[in-house]
């Protein structure tokens, strides 16, 4: 056991000696090491990739860790080392090659991986155009430090990264904008890439658009170096209450094959930290990559609603500290000439909630829809000036006054609503040239007149009307239930009438068809035989006459009812059989004529013969 301990102590001692030598050599050769860094190609399009080559030439091989630039992903693709000993002096050349894949377009400055090296610049185009100006390349340049108080740091991803917020205050009003710094710290060598901008958790706040160029600084936290990216932006609370806010950031970390504590050859020796050091592990290629999301420590806010008391009627939602001024594009114009009323709202706050104090048509002015332009005075859009430009046209000549405008806002500092009144502006309006349609416009009333009219006097209202008929309701008949029912009722009545007429026409047609149908000889003979057997002379002749009528009506083109005895006599003569049959039929109806059996048979044959020529006589 003691031998084993001795061997272990020897090994540790030897390792310490080697590492110490390496470290001393590194320090000693720090100034003598030449670092070269190049990227090929230096301009690519989004979706492509470039190769970053880092070369260190010196007496010893330094540890090279991949650089970290937001928007770029680095993947080690090759490493070579060449050691030469000339005249007993060792010289090492270490080359590490990374594949660089951009996640966004821009101009990226990749800091040197080794002290004393020159940064490399990579330009990434969108594909069909140049890279946007002010890209992430600026990120390497440290920016002005924020005056916001530092926040607590809660590390995530096993200490590889952290996200923290720096805020000016935690008590605010709905709609109030406050500056905020979002800081993402990445431990050098342990974070491969940032996979997106920081994002708010929840819907109680809105965040201004994050700049593409976070500032980059270095910070030592708990003795460990971090690269800290800072986004300066502004936060707006959108609902009241006690609210908690966190910020998430997606990133890729290098997961190291850590030496388990208490196990292995170096346990309890103090070498675990050394072995877990990212530089050490990267050098020996003992890490893999994993996507994680790191969240900030929750920040609690007290968000108050805007007070209802004292709220001006024209309050449009602006919260902050503002000043308002107006001016005109010119002080002289002609009738019908456009002039521009510029309203400047400057100060600090959420300018997205600043609405224009708009003038409307009237008072001899024709007003058009204003346009707005915001000029930020800082990088986050918290301070600045919003200018509204509203074109106006005077329809009357004279010394005209542009009406005053009011603007109100809520000031969180004073905790009350503030109002600003712009002073009246005057402009000299020259009459329109003779012949113009505007030339007949009379001069305007003096500025401040309540209701100028065509004659500059009190408003000229059109005269009253004589009272006429009235309606019981203002609701038009179209939309009153009792009237709404009338058109459908009328439609139903019309439809019913249509159907009724159609049905009647069908019935009449059927009846006409039945009336005009040729009688069956057999049925007619049977019918007449029946009446003859019964001695019913009237029915006998009625049946025969009806059959003759149908035949004659068809022959003569008359209605059966129009075939009367007179009509038959006039057409066939009184001596014809048919005429005599018609006369006998009338006689049978009125005089109870009695016939013998042979007479019945004779008249039957006459009828049948005239109904159908095929009947033998």
């Amino acid at each position, binding site marked *: 056991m003691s031998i084993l301990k001795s061997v272990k102590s020897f090994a540790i001692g030897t390792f310490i000696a080697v590492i110490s030598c390496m470290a001393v050599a590194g320090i000693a050769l720090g100034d003598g090491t030449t670092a070269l860094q190049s990227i090929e190609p230096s301009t690519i399009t989004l979706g492509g990739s470039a190769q970053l080559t880092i070369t260190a030439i010196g007496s010893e091989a330094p540890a090279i860790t991949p650089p970290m630039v937001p928007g770029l992903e680095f993947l080690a693709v090759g490493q070579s080392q060449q050691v030469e000993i000339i005249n007993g002096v060792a010289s090492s050349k270490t080359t590490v090659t990374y594949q660089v894949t951009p996640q966004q377009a821009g101009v990226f400055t990749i800091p040197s991986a080794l002290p004393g090296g020159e940064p490399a610049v990579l330009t990434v185009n969108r594909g069909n155009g140049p890279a946007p100006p002010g890209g992430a390349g600026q990120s390497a340049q440290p920016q002005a430090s924020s005056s916001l108080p530092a926040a607590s740091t809660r590390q995530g991803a096993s200490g590889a990264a952290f996200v923290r917020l720096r805020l000016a205050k935690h008590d605010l009003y709905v709609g109030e904008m406050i500056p905020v710094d979002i800081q993402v710290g990445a431990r050098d060598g342990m974070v491969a890439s940032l996979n997106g901008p920081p994002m708010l958790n929840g819907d109680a706040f809105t965040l201004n658009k994050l700049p593409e160029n976070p500032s980059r600084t270095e910070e030592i936290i708990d003795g460990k170096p971090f690269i800290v990216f800072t986004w300066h932006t502004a936060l707006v609370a959108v609902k009241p209450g006690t609210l908690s806010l966190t910020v998430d950031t997606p990133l890729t970390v290098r997961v190291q094959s850590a030496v388990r504590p208490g196990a292995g050859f170096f346990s309890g020796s103090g070498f675990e930290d050394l072995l877990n050091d990212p530089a050490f592990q990267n050098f020996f290629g003992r890490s893999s990559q994993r996507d994680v999301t790191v969240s900030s420590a929750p920040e609690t806010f007290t968000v108050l609603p805007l007070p209802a008391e004292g709220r001006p009627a024209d309050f449009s939602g602006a919260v902050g500290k503002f000043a308002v001024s107006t001016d005109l594009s010119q002080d002289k114009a002609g009738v019908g000439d456009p002039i521009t009323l510029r309203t400047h709202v400057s100060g600090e706050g959420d300018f997205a909630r600043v609405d224009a104090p708009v003038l409307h048509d009237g008072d001899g002015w024709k007003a058009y829809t204003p346009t707005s332009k915001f000029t930020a005075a800082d990088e986050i859009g918290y301070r600045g000036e919003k200018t509204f430009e509203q074109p106006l046209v005077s329809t009357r000549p004279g010394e005209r006054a542009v009406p005053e405008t009011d603007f109100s806002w809520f000031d969180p500092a004073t905790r009350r609503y503030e109002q600003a009144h712009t002073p009246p502006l005057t402009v000299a309006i020259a009459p329109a040239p003779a012949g113009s349609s505007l030339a007949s416009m009379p001069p305007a009333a003096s500025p401040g007149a309540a209701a100028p009219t065509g004659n500059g006097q009190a408003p000229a209202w059109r005269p009253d009307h004589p009272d006429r008929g009235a309606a019981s309701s203002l*609701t038009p008949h179209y939309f009153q239930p009792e009237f709404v029912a009338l058109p459908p009722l009328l439609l139903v009545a019309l439809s019913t009438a249509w159907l009724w007429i*159609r049905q009647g026409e069908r019935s009449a047609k059927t009846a006409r068809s039945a009336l005009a149908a040729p009688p069956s000889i057999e049925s007619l003979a049977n019918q007449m035989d029946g009446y003859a057997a019964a001695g019913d002379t009237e029915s006998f002749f009625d049946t025969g006459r009806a059959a003759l009528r149908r035949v004659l009506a068809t022959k003569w083109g008359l209605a059966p009812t129009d075939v009367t005895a007179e009509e038959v006599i006039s057409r066939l003569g009184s001596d014809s059989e048919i005429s005599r049959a018609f006369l006998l039929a009338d006689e049978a109806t009125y005089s109870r004529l009695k016939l013998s059996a042979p007479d019945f048979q004779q008249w039957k044959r006459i009828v049948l013969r005239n109904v159908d020529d095929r009947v033998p006589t």
Partner: protein
Amino acid sequence: MRRGGFVVGVAIALVGLGVCCAAARAQTPAETPRAAEYSPAHLYNQANADARAGKVALAVLEYERARVLAPADPDARENLRHARELAGVPAGPDDWFERYGRFANPNAMYWIGIAGLALGGGCLLMLRRRTPTRGALLAGMILGAAMVGASLVNAAATFPVLSEAVALEQAAAGVSPVEGADALFAVPAASTVRVLDRHQGFDLIRDSQGREGWVSAANLAPVIPSSAGNDSVSSRAAIR
């Protein structure tokens, strides 16, 4: 049977004409109007009186109401424009269809539509009878259809008026129908807005610029009151 159809058609046409005559009689001058506040002339005159007294918001409301029954009245239109100028508010929600579709008294147009329906339907019925006046019947049918069409256009153009309201006082349009909600924009007095929804004493309105927000219903008076009779009085009391 043909005679029967002809008689039915004539009867329906006569009924339609009779209804129209009755309606026209109801619209003719009467010595004692049933509800003077809904006479267009009375509303117009009252609006003039309010305008002269400086009650511009109330005047705008009454001009709007007068224009419901007399949309083509040039005096009401001009005075309404003038009142809006005085109040500094833009014209109410109006589009070309509404402007040209509301060309006549909607009640008269309603009866014209009914008469057109009776005329067209009667002519159609009579066309079933073979008659030498077929051309005249066809013309009558086309005329009836035109009358019905005009009435329908007028109804469609009048329909949006049902949801219009006038702000009697300046009000703030908020993001939600609760007291103390964040204000989105200001609704000036006398502006005509369109009410899209109602919720617990608040109206969701859309102004002439297309902006939407919740306004306390107490600040608005509907152009067409929900119940006949006392709305004019209540809104007047509210403004006073």
